[in-house]
């Protein structure tokens, strides 16, 4: 067992403090314990030094995806990042996600993601399903399950340059919702033809496959390779006039157009 786990010691944290109008990194010294994660450190600072430090967290078990932040410049879950896995010879910086409007300190307004999700037609069973229990292969389950592991930490959204740098929140749903669309699209019993939404409102064409999202996913979902690229290929096939003749309807047989959706969700 991990008897060798590094001891605590004093660590220097630089935590971003401020709101939409102004802010800066503020230095804190903290006596740490072995095995401490960044969230432990932030909460200890909140308890003992800065009672109004705003931080969002819930489960502290890497299952709810609430405590996303940029640690040493990289999006990570604070509850899953051990202090002793970060370089000891430099301060640990903790900053809010940048792709979303700041509320205060480490807390951002992620409500845009919820507005996007409302635009996505939920699972709708095919009309032609027989009565009785749903019958699904374990292989299909495994394929969907990778995407359904998503804990909605929104760090893939944070790091996606279409959202983070180009601020095209009204043109691209972002990796999180490409993953969601993929889990629905790959459901063998789903009766909705989702390709138009994936291409048009979803804006899958804006992704240029830099795989930044995949790198930060705390659940290890292969967002680019397993969700986005296969859907891009199907969108291209569906819109290619030649492919249309040869492959018309393949994979989409029995699937219907989704109901109309409301306007683009603005940030």
């Amino acid at each position, binding site marked *: *067992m*991990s*008897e060798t*786990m590094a001891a605590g010691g004093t660590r220097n944290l630089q935590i971003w403090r401020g709101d939409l109008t102004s802010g800066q990194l503020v230095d804190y010294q903290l006596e740490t*314990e*072995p*095995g*401490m*994660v960044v969230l*432990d450190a932030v909460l200890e600072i*909140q*308890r003992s030094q800065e*009672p*109004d*430090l*705003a*931080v*969002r*967290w*819930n*489960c*502290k*078990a*890497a*299952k*709810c995806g*609430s405590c996303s932040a940029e640690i040493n410049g990289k999006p990570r879950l604070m509850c*899953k990042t*051990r202090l002793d896995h970060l370089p000891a010879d430099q301060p640990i910086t903790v900053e809010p996600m940048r792709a979303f409007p700041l*509320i*205060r*300190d480490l*807390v951002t*307004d*992620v*409500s845009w993601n*919820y507005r996007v*999700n*409302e635009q996505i037609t*939920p*699972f709708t*069973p095919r009309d032609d399903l027989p009565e009785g*229990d*749903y*019958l*699904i*292969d*374990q292989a299909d*389950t495994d394929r*969907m*399950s990778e995407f*359904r*592991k*998503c*804990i*909605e930490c929104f760090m893939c959204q944070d790091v996606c340059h279409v959202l983070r740098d180009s601020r095209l929140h009204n043109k691209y749903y972002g990796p999180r919702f490409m993953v969601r669309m993929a*889990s*629905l699209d790959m*459901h063998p019993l*789903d009766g909705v033809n989702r390709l138009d939404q994936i291409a048009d409102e979803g804006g899958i064409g804006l992704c240029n496959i830099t795989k930044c999202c995949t790198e930060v996913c705390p659940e290890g979902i292969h967002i680019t390779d397993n969700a986005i690229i296969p859907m891009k290929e199907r969108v291209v096939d569906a819109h290619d006039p030649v492919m249309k003749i040869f492959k018309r309807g393949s994979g989409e047989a029995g699937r219907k157009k989704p109901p109309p959706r409301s306007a683009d969700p603005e940030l």
Partner: protein
Amino acid sequence: MAIEHHDYDVLVLGSGGSGLRAAIAAADAGAKTGLVCKSLLGKAHTVMAEGGLAASLGNVAPEDNWSTHFQDTMFGGKYLNNWRMAELHAREAPDRARELERWGAVFDRTPDRKMSQRAFGGHTYKRLVHIGDRTGLELIRTMQDKTVHSNVDIFMETTITRLLKDGERVVGAFGYKRPSGEQVTFSAKALVVATGGGGRIYKITSNSQDCTGDGYALAYEAGAEMVDMEFIQFHPTGMVFPPGVAGLLVTEAVRGEGGILRNNLGERFMEKYDPKRMELSTRDVVARSIYTEVKEGRGTPHGGAYLDVSHLDSDYVRRKLPSMYDQFMELAGVDITKEPMQVGPTCHYFMGGIKVDAENGETRVPGLFATGEASGGMNGANRLGGNSLGDLLVFGRRAGEGAAGVAAKVENVSIPQDEIAAAQAEVELFLNGPGTENPFQMHKELQTIMGDGAGIFRDKEGLTEAIDKLESLEGRVGNLKSPTNRIDYNPGWQLCREVKNMLTVSLMIARGALMREESRGGHSRLDFTAYSDYWGEHNIVTHNAGDKDMVLTPTPVAKREELAELVEARKESEKAS
């Protein structure tokens, strides 16, 4: 100053499994429905449920049926369950599981492509529908998506600090929005408390930080009765190291898939405590066994027991227990396919809760309903693994429908101004009052008192001392004050009311535990180690008789004539073995 106000037929507090299911049911029944949650949607404690959802579908064990599930639940609950709730749960869980699948939930499959089911402690047959070890996330995400497409208004990061009454009737709720601190009132013809449990009263807990027993305290203050609050489930297997993650859940599925418990002598100690069921004995038994092994000097270096799956195929472990593999690898540096985990008991679940009508979740307060972990009765003295996900679906639906039914008969409700003023005064006092008590500090004190005096093993001396200390905290709780008076996302302000709630709940637990002079399920007395015939027939019902006057009344268990045969048959067969 006018404050933001919303009118609903049905208002649901809490967005975990039971709250979402209640909101869906209420909206389906045609009620104008609002849902309020302390955190973001989809983050509630249900996401942490791992093992599965108990439902006698019979996909793996065709001989399974509702009556065996009912008997298992009653036996697990040591016969203190509300019989009708245990019956409804066992009968309806299969339909609720199938319904989830029709809403898009994805579960592991059998070779003949149906929902697979796994073994779990206390269940006679393989019964738990599951997906890997993240079944709770699947439930939450499925119902979250169902809810946002069900015409339900959702108020995220909104904290409710008081239920508002007009005479005897609950007619709404008061709270504030956490990001801005702005106050908000809701009127409701019927209100469903679905706020989950209160594990944060203990330091070592598997519970999310939101689990501060808010609903118990709010409903108690509004006049509802509580039942059997002394029964706390300590899950046998929480992580014990490193310190920052102590208490973090290690799913029972680890044992369900074949994990073995050993002490530091290498002995498979469950042979001593329950040779028939071994590692898959009920949770109360396994938790006490581990605690006893550690106390008698046979614990691991970090004060737990070894839990080992390294004899299983490593690919199988990584496929069936992926998040356990990650959790130990990331947080403890342990590869569970090669070396054993170290585990110990952690506060996991409140069997007790708000006393409700089994059929529709109604409390004795007009207009007030409760469901899920916030309600009590279904699980008796001890809950079987897998029965909480079934519970929140079956009774979430019933409470949502029940609330909508009552709301339809209510013409209009209006909130008396003095109710709002009192609620405002309270939150204002936490922010700008003359108090000097720090909520972070008081929370720590409370956790120490409960851990020391009302933990996994209890006795008269310890409980009496705990109650004394809690009563002295009660004298100080009016002086709670946030360390800063800003209103936007102020964690200290939030914690003030939560600490007050946790204190109320702790008093119910400790007083109930002192009154119940026996050991049963999730309540173990060192000075009364055996079952008592009297207490085996009685629940403890607690209500608020006014200013700090908490009244506890032993009340006969709610039985059902037509189920007596099943219960007796199970008691006989247990005696025989």
